[in-house]
């Protein structure tokens, strides 16, 4: 069975419903973001220095230990948490569509492309093993020179400090006996990190506006160039 066929089967058994944790009656995810304005031009505004990224050791697609610090420094990084079988239309799939489109836009700029990377960290180390991630990653990075990394953790306890540092909430649906089911609830967040490892913007669903995100990336690129010239 190919990876492309395997995923829909998993998806059929599992449903991620982001943005819904507390279960009071009719809670519906918000719709995709509206954008009724012209975004500011890159470099005409300054992004806030929200928080530094704490270091951690994770596993890459080949099962090798990697320092997170190495993947949030030296380039402009877009980092998000996901899991491979999430099918919430306004969760991971929406983020991936946005990131794929952004990658294609970034690749159109030969100067910018080598300065940007994407990092996806799995919320489910138990199921999203390095082997699973390696297959999953081919859908996104295959044939592209763009740096797009997929990480997992050796076990959930190794992941928890990372989630805590980023303020990424995750909970798991349980069955009648209180046992974990395969439904993860998480708030979709995409973190924009500058080459010095500082989070400069966080995009939740209402903020995922590709034109704005691209301009933010270009703003950090211009900022880096200015700093380098000093």
């Amino acid at each position, binding site marked *: 069975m190919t990876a492309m066929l395997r995923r829909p089967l998993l998806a059929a058994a599992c449903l991620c419903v982001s943005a819904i*944790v*507390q279960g009071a009656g009719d*809670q519906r995810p918000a719709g995709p973001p509206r954008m009724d304005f012209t975004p500011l031009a890159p470099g005409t*505004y300054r992004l*806030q220095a*929200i928080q530094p990224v704490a270091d951690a050791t994770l596993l890459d697609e080949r099962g090798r230990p990697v320092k997170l610090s190495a993947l949030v420094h030296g380039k402009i990084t877009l980092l998000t948490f996901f899991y491979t079988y999430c099918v919430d239309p306004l969760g991971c799939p*929406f983020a*991936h569509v946005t990131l794929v*489109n952004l990658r294609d836009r970034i690749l159109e700029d030969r100067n910018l492309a080598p300065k940007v990377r994407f990092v996806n960290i799995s919320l489910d180390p138990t199921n999203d093993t390095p082997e699973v991630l390696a297959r999953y990653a081919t859908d996104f990075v295959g044939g592209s020179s763009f740096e797009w990394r997929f990480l997992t953790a050796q076990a*959930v306890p190794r992941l928890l400090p990372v989630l805590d540092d980023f303020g990424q909430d995750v909970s798991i649906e349980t069955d009648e006996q209180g046992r974990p089911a395969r439904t993860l609830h998480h708030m979709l967040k995409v973190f924009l990190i500058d080459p010095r490892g500082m989070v400069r913007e966080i995009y939740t669903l209402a903020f995922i506006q590709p034109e704005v995100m691209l301009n933010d990336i270009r703003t950090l690129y211009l900022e880096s160039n200015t700093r380098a010239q000093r």
Partner: protein
Amino acid sequence: MHRSSLFAVILGSLYGCLGLGPSAIADETCNSPYMSNLIKGQEDFIHVWTLGVEGLGDGSDKLVTIDVNPKSKGYGKVVNSLSVGGRGEAHHMGFTDDRKYLWAGGLDDSKIYVFDVGSNPAQPKLVRTIADLPAKTKYVGPHTFYALPGRMLIGNLSNTVDMGGVTGMALYNNKGTLITKYDMPTTAVGGVKGDGYGYDIAINPAKNVILTSSFAGHQNYMRELGDLIKDAEAMKHFGSTMVVWNLKSMQPTQVLSVPGAPLEIRWSLAPGENWAITAAALTSKLWLVKQGEGGKWVAKEVGTIGDPAKIPLPVDISISADGKGLWVNTFMDGTTHYFDLTDPEHPKETYQKHTGSQVNMISQSWDGKRVYITSSLLAHWDKKGADNEQFLRAFNWDGHELTPAFEVDFAKEKLGRPHHMKFTAKAGKARTLASIAGE
């Protein structure tokens, strides 16, 4: 097929099969649009940020939690009271973006308390106290707590220099570290001079716009109301502007003239709408802020609340989820008003009810069927003697009549003066990743 196109098709089909179209990105009608976990059904608890009263109970400011689910055995009862160990003029609160934590401020001591309401909403825990706001920003009186992703934007009322109304907004990350500050404009922006005053914050992400309003400084809000209104000079020191900000750059783009202390701001949550509404406390007027031709924002007086000559003092407002109705509480005459906002340019009052000797905050459920009212405005502005009722009153609303559901007497229960309310819901069957990892 190009990968992007493939995913677009998958996404499109999922929208179709799940029936999810664009909808209002908002919370129970007044919270930050960046907040998750909307409660569109029955709320389980109301948390009430309560001012301590000397000689009443422990005298401390406290977070009071009330069970408000009619199916619960504890319905209408106080299930938890968490004192913070001091009296600092408890006032407003706001959830973090993930709704796990509730930030609450003191207008007098400028302390900010962070409560964990996500782990067990029936028993909130105080997890952090932030006391560096005045020292690091020179702002006083943290009022509005407005969630941004990973951050909390705080609208303040005053300053450390003269304790007057010139102030600004402070931005903290969710770990409680100050990121930066933004002074309210005191010069002309867009042709109107700013007064530098602050109060509420409301964001429209689709427009990339923040609106702020303006009230008064510590000198005024901590003074006895009876003395204050006799002091003509002091009465000049109330806000008379609103400010339009570019959300991305956090720069003011327009100052709007809105006399009479415009307070709470509510954006219409209906998809595609481009207006917000506010009430000016001193003039008892409703003001509409709407985007006009060329993208410029215009503030327009659109209605009167009660008889302005009697100074009814409109305080809190609550907009319905469809943007077609507005509750307004007037403090002095203890009246709750309902306005039909079908035409926001011409609000029509269709209902009013005397709900207490003094009424201040008003919150409605997302479906509009339940309305909650508290009594206290400010420690020094509340009425005296028998009129100093202190309560939370819950009502059911059928579109025609407010029917009492239950009441908690905050004086009898020795709790204090109830002010701001926030809803939470039980976690259902979901468990945290950490709890499962520990097994």
